[in-house]
Structure formats: structure tokens, C-alpha cells
């Protein structure tokens, strides 16, 4: 199965691990990814609310570039890119006047795009629908047994009308099913579609930190060893701001965050290093230890000093706390009657 691949800015920088792990698992899953040539920023969540036409033109340029691959489907692993690209494509189908304006803009660069030409897919949708859970499970060589994970979808791919894997937008289950297929112990995470705050930490620190706290606390209450996400924005908030949030609320949560593609890679027997583990701020070490995988030791050259300092600052209680939570019911409710 051959697809155009739109990594997006995040996957080149803060979410490099998402990119490397996506590319690493593509082969075993039978996905051939052809990167869109000379793609540009999708405008993230901000631009579209400042200047809609300009923002959409920016997005449409990527769709136009994608047509050059001669493939009718394009994978965008980043949820924001996925949402922007799908929106733009749909608007160009439903609003011919807009399509005309965008094409005028595209013409300046010698490009054009007809709405509906490219089917924009999120990677999670391709894995559930095109690859299938059966095939996925058949490739597992190292089941993630004993690892308690909280599946976190975020708000961008769980919007009504996107039709990802026949999602129920209120309570999607495709990520739950993927992680189950990998052998992990999946928490029924009630906050799975709640907002991570987006760029709220830059606007109102207290609001942003409170949203992050709810999610991290929720995962911790459910005794999850880690949060598994599908979105670079969510990853950034939950990982990079976790310690800031801890300082703000005087708490000490240490819940590592990983991309679902990293988890798939682990289950396929790939090394943590190959999958980009060790690049996040909250250490996934204790969680990975549960499945007998070591976190890559002190990272390469540039980040060495920084990481060392971080390693020191990580308090020891975290692995213990995570280990203790293993057997709990994690529900805080009366015992379920089995039906």
C-alpha cells in the first residue's frame, strides 16, 4: 500500500520521534510512504483564525504538491496537519468560490488543486482500516505485557464528521484496540478526548497548566505507566510542560508520554533508540523496564549536558509508584459485576 506522506513541521523538530517511529513501522506494516516534495507549514492551530483565506491557501499548496506523487491518499501523522488538510480539502469541495480564490493564489506558484483529489488520512486510521488489527497483531514479536497505558486521542482527531475509523467522536476506541493488539494493558481513560490546552500555556499559564494537570492526574489516578498519544501538540504539552505544571501546583507527577507508533515499534521488537525514545523530558525508562527494554543511555553529543542535568533532577519515587500501581483496580468505583 503506497501513500503520500506529509510529516509536517513538528515531526522534523519536537516530534522527531514520531517521524522516525512512523517510518520505522511502515515497512513491517506494508506501508510505503512517499514524502510530499517541498511541503510547507500547515499553519497549525493559529493561522486559520487570523486570516482564513491565506491560511487555507498555505494548506492548499500542500495538497497541490501532493498530487505530484500521483497517489490519491496522503497520510498526515500530526493531528493538526491532518485536521487542517482535511478541512481545506472539504471546503474546496463544498465552497466553489473559495476553491476559485485558493486556486488563484496557487496559480502564482504555478500550482492548482481540485477539492477531493487527495484523500487525507490520519496514520491511526490507516493502521486500523487499511492494515487492520489482525495484521498488526500478527507482527507483534514482543507483546507489551504488563505495561499499563492510557490511550489519549486529544481533541483534534475526535471531532464529529471526520469519520476516522468509524469513530464515535465522544468516545473513540481505535487507539485502545491498537494498544490491546500490541498486548498492553489498556486503561479505560475517561479523559481520552479532552483538550490538552493547545498553546494555552503561552496565553494563560494557569489555565494551560490546569488542563495538563487534569490529564496527567487522570492517567496517574488510573495507575497508567504511560500516556500514549497520536498528536505532537498533546505530546508537547503533557511531556515538556509536565514539570512546569508540577512546579505550579506543587505536585510531583512523572507520567511519561509516547507516540502510538513508538509503542507499535516496541511491540515489533525494535529498539527504543531506533524509535526515538530517550528524547522526551519525562523519562520513559521505568515504563520501558517493565517490558525489558532499556532507555538509550545518555543521548548523543549536543544534548548530553542538558540530559544529564535532567537525569539528576528526576526523583526516584516515580518508578516505585508506577510499580505499585500494577495490580490495582484503578477505578475508584465499586467492583464491576461481570456480565
Amino acid at each position, binding site marked *: 500500500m503506497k501513500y503520500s506522506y506529509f510529516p509536517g513541521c513538528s515531526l522534523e523538530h519536537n516530534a522527531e520521534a514520531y517521524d522516525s517511529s512512523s517510518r520505522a513501522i511502515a515497512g513491517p506494516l506494508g506501508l510505503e510512504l512517499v514524502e510530499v516534495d517541498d511541503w510547507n507549514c500547515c499553519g497549525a492551530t493559529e493561522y486559520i483564525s487570523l486570516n482564513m483565506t491565506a491560511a487555507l491557501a498555505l494548506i492548499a499548496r500542500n495538497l497541490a504538491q501532493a498530487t505530484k506523487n500521483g497517489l490519491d491518499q496522503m497520510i498526515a501523522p500530526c493531528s493538526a496537519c491532518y485536521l487542517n488538510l482535511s478541512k481545506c480539502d472539504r471546503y474546496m469541495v463544498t465552497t466553489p468560490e473559495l476553491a476559485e480564490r485558493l486556486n488563484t493564489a496557487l496559480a502564482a506558484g504555478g500550482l492548482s488543486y481540485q477539492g477531493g483529489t487527495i484523500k487525507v488520512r490520519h496514520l491511526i486510521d490507516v493502521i486500523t482500516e487499511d492494515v487492520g488489527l489482525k495484521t498488526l497483531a500478527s507482527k507483534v514479536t514482543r507483546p507489551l505485557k504488563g505495561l499499563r497505558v492510557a490511550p489519549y486521542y486529544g481533541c483534534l482527531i475526535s471531532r464529529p464528521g471526520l469519520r476516522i475509523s468509524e469513530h*464515535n467522536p465522544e468516545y473513540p476506541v481505535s487507539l485502545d484496540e491498537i494498544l490491546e493488539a500490541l498486548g498492553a494493558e489498556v486503561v*479505560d481513560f*475517561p*479523559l481520552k478526548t479532552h483538550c490538552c490546552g493547545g498553546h494555552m500555556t503561552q496565553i494563560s499559564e494557569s489555565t494551560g497548566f490546569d488542563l495538563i494537570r*487534569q490529564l496527567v492526574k487522570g492517567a496517574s489516578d488510573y495507575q497508567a505507566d504511560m500516556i500514549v498519544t497520536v498528536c505532537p501538540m498533546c505530546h508537547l504539552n503533557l511531556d515538556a510542560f509536565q514539570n512546569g505544571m508540577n512546579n505550579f501546583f506543587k505536585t510531583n507527577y512523572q507520567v511519561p508520554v509516547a507516540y502510538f507508533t513508538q509503542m507499535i515499534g516496541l511491540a515489533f521488537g525494535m529498539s527504543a533508540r531506533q524509535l526515538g525514545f530517550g528524547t522526551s523530558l519525562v523519562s520513559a525508562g521505568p515504563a520501558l523496564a517493565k517490558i525489558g527494554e532499556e532507555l538509550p543511555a545518555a543521548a548523543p553529543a549536543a544534548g548530553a549536558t542538558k540530559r544529564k542535568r535532567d537525569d539528576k533532577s528526576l526523583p526516584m519515587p516515580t518508578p516505585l509508584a508506577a510499580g505499585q500501581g500494577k495490580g490495582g483496580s484503578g*477505578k*475508584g468505583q*465499586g*467492583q*464491576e459485576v461481570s456480565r
Partner: protein
Amino acid sequence: MSDGKEPRIGVYICHCGSNIAGTVDVEEVARWAGEHLPGVVVGRDYKFMCSSLGQELIEKDIHDLDLNRVVVGACSPHLHEATFRGACQRAGLNPFLFDMASLREQVSWVCADRAVATEKAKALIAGSVYRVAQNEPLEPIIVDINPNVLVVGGGVAGIQAALEIADAGYHVYLVDREPSIGGHMAQLDKTFPTLDCSACILTPKMFSAGTHKNITLLTYADVEKVDGFVGNFTAQIRQHARKVDVSLCTGCGVCQEKCPKKVIDDVFEAGLGYRKAVYTPFPQAVPKYPVIDVQNCTYFQKGSCKVCEKFCPTGAIKFDQQDELLTVNVGNVILATGYDLFDSRRIPQYGYGRLANVFTSMEFERLANASGPTNGKVVLRDGVTVPQSVAIVHCVGSRDRNYNSYCSAICCMQSLKFAHLVHERTGARVYNCYIDIRTPAKSYDEFYQRVLEEGTVFVRGKVAEVTDAARVPGEEGKLIVQVEDTLVGHQRRIPVDMVILSAGMEPRAGAKEVGKIFGISCSMDGWFIERHPKLDPVATMTEGIFIAGVCQGPKDIPASVSQGAAAAARVLGLICRGRISLEPVRAQVNQDQCSGCRICNNLCPFNAITFIEERGVTEINPALCQGCGTCVAACPAGAITGTHFSNTQVLAQIDGLLSVMA
């Protein structure tokens, strides 16, 4: 013209107030028909053709102008074909020399442009005029009514219908697929607004139905097939094997007591309690005989056990008992097949099935019921903890276009009843989260006032989610109901111990198939369609098939009982008349043309076609034929004619239509 006379046709265009005249230029259509259409002697328009004055107009013209054909352009033939046929008949004209064009349903209600609508009306009238010229006089078929009645569904509506008919002296076959009659009402604790015990008022009726000399009770049975027509139906009923010989069983209950296999009762106890593999659903079950649930019985699954057989004092357990097929002949059928409760798991954000202390309305009924799994104690799912606070969520699966857009009619009152019961039994703080409160029947709003005065907190807003993810210390260990209080304009998070989801009503999962068996159809939502929503709510488009209770649409107990009685009254009316005249619209085989190919033989949905071996031709039984036309279209030799729908008539109508459209 078969009678040799030239056609003299009268055309009458109805204004239907402004229903038709508002969109169609009715004066113009009438004038044009009178002047341009072949055979038309007079064209008139009138405000309400169906009024007695309108009908008299037709009758007078038949006399004065010597009309021998009549066309009326008005509403749908469903509504008034019989009316105008009657007018023709009174004036001495055979009622089948009449044709009706639907200028309301097919024109004015679906067209916006006056010029286009008027053109279409002309085309339909021309079709009718061309067709009516080819009509032949026909005589109705008179058939006798078998006074026996089949009632399908033994809930309160079916029981009421069966008792009314049986008390009037006629025989009823009352069929229910469950081991006992009683339906949903038998599961309930109290009934609103009077709070009388549901079982106490239902069981006397169940008992009467079970012992009535005119009622044959067939429980644990399904109707598989129905043939025939009004007055003369033949129903095939599968009596599932109870594995218990009811002629020997005394209903002592020893088998249930001794049976070692306990299973969760998903039907009567709504999944909240247990029953044995051999069981009667509840102590007051009618009939009292148990059934063996073969799927869960240790003997049937593993080949050994037979404890029930060992302990049965009368030797009534019969492991080798087989299903029985019964055939009954009845004149009329009443369907009272009820509803399914909306499956709350379809709204995952409400947590049912995930969060232990989220209950459905039916689970709460069983919880509150003195004969339920907790003997009426309102407790959390751990079976012991009494809730300190309870939230009741209205409109779960109803008034929500993601699920069902209709209102389930009972949930408001049911939720108010729950609020009262929780107060009474636990003293807990109760929150009712509602969209609108709908209490529109006798003494209902007074009950609402009473619950308000008891101190129930009413929050107007649709619940967004029920979660156990606490944000602040007060929420720890609680279920949090997130809801926008639309009266205050604020989001609220209400921490409670228990949540009750007031789930709506849905058509039975198999309603469409049941409809097919009985030849009636379902609405878009899946409820059986009545003949007229206001004026004929218990009859259906199929003569002799009636509907009652929730299978027709959501309703409460009083309304279901009323419909059961109403359906019985309609059936008794037919029985008392003794005979009924049927439309002579039938298929006929021209035996000289029939080649005996037998293509039509298996197509007839009414089994009206038989092949006569010795003559090598096919014959149609006019009593069984419903005039559907399937065989007419299928016959390769063109040997079958549909009376009143002959090729000549249909082609003439098309010619008429095209004469205007072209």
C-alpha cells in the same frame, strides 16, 4: 366501453380549503378538463368535495347530466376514495366507474411553483379521465369473518385486548415469546403518577388472561407465518419446547430451587439479577410452568446433571420434548409487540457498562422493586452502600438526532418517579438533569409539583458526560456529571454516588420482520404505521391487522391499555358484522392463454395460485388473491389480467398523462 355507451364523464376538482387551491389553479383545471378532455361532460371545482354538499353535487350531476363515469381530483385515495365511491353508488353508478387523482399529496404539497403545479394537476386529471373511460363495473367480494382472534404480545396492551374480546364471548389466542405474559409492566416497581405497585395492578389481569375459558395462552411461542386475508387468516405458531410437560407440572418450583446452574437474567431482571437454567421469570408468572434454558442448562451443554428431573415430584421434566408447530385459524390479528429499551452503551460518554454505578432506568426499576435482586433496597452496585446523592439523566437516546429524534414520552414521568423513590428509600440528594419537563396527562403535573416540593434539584441541560476523572478533592471517588445549566448559563460538575440513565424506548429489534410476516409496515423510526395517526390509530393499512401499545409508538401504561381496548373494539365490530366486503381487485387467469409454465406459481406472496395438473393450467383463488399484480407482470404469455388494473386501463392512463406532458 364494454356496455356500448359513449362515456359521459364528470370531473370534480377539490380546493381542499387552501391545501390544493393555494398552489394549483383549480378553476382553470376544472374549466380545461370540461372543455378539452375526451368524454368529459362537466368540469367543476368546489371548496370541499368530501363535504355532504360536495358529494351531493356529484350525485345530482349523475342524475341530471346522465354521467356514467366520475373523476375526482382531491386528496389521496387512502383518505376519500371510499367517500366518493359511496356518492357514485348512491346515485346508482357502479363505484368502480370512478377514479381519483391525488392533487394534494402528489401535487400541491410537493410543488412550489403555481404554473408547474397546475400543469401537473392537469396531467393527472387527464390520466384519470382516459383511465376511467376503460373502467368496468365490478362487484365487491363478500367474505365471512372467523370470530377467533390472534393477539401477539402479552404485555399490558395485549392482555387488555385479549380480555376485552374474550369477555365478549369470542376466542383469543394470546401469543408471547417469553415464558410468561406480563411484558415490561411486570418488571416495574411503582407506576406513575399514583405510585401503585405495578405488579399488584397487573397480576390480576394476567391471572384472568391465564384462566379465561375463551383464551388459549401460548407463551414461549413465536408466530412464524401468516396467510390469508381479513376474516380468514391462518397463522403458523412455533411453540418452543419448554422441556417441561405442562400437563404434569404443578408449578411447585422445586426444579428451580434445586437447579445448580445460576445465570444472569438479562431479560426480566435487566441484567441486575440471577435466575436458574430452569426458571419462571418471576413468582407471579402466568402460566406458572417453568422452561429450561437449553443454552445454559448443564445437561444440554455437558450431557449430565438432570437434577431437575430427579427432584420433580410429578415427572414433568421432558428433556426430549421438541418444538411444536401449531396452526390456528383466526379472522383478525392484534399486534401488541411492545418495545426494546434503548441500549445506553451506545452513548459511551455516559459511562454505562464502564462505570459501575451508572444504572439504566430498567435496572433501577429492578433495584427499587421489592421482589428485585436487592429486595427493594436502593444501593450501589457493590450491593451494600446506600447512595448519598443520585443524578437522574433524562432523554438518554431520545430527542437526540445522533440516536432517536423522537420523544419517548415516558421518561420525564419515570424520572420524576425515580426521584421520589430515591428520596423515600435513601434520603439522598437527587438531581434531575432534563432538557424539558413534559408532564401532559391527567395528574402528571401535580406529581411534578410534588417531586419539586420534596426538594429534588432540577438542572436544565443536556448532560455532556459522566466521568470518574476527579478534578478537585470533593470529586474524588464520585461520579461527576458534567452538564451545562442552561438556566444559569454555567457549566456544572455535579459529584454523585449514583447515576440513573432514563433510557428511551426503541422499536423491537425484529419489528421489520414481524411487520413483514403480518403484511404491515414500519415508519422511518421503526414503529408500526397506523392507518391514520389521529383518526384510525389502531388499524393498519392491511385489513384485519390491528396494532396496540408501544409497537405503534412510545406511550405509557394508560395509553397502552386504551389502545388495547380500542383494537379489541375494532375487532369486535368486525366480528359482530359477521362478514366484510372486499375490493374486487383480483388477478384472473385466461385459461385459454395459460401455457402452464408455472412461473407465477411460486411468486404469489399470498399462496393464492394453484396449478391444476389434469388441465395443465394455473388458477387463482379470488378469496386469497390480494390483487398485488406480481403474477400479472410475471406471466410471459400475458394470460393473467389484474382486474381494475388491466393493461388497457394502465396504458390509457399513461396516454392521458402524456397527452398533457408532451
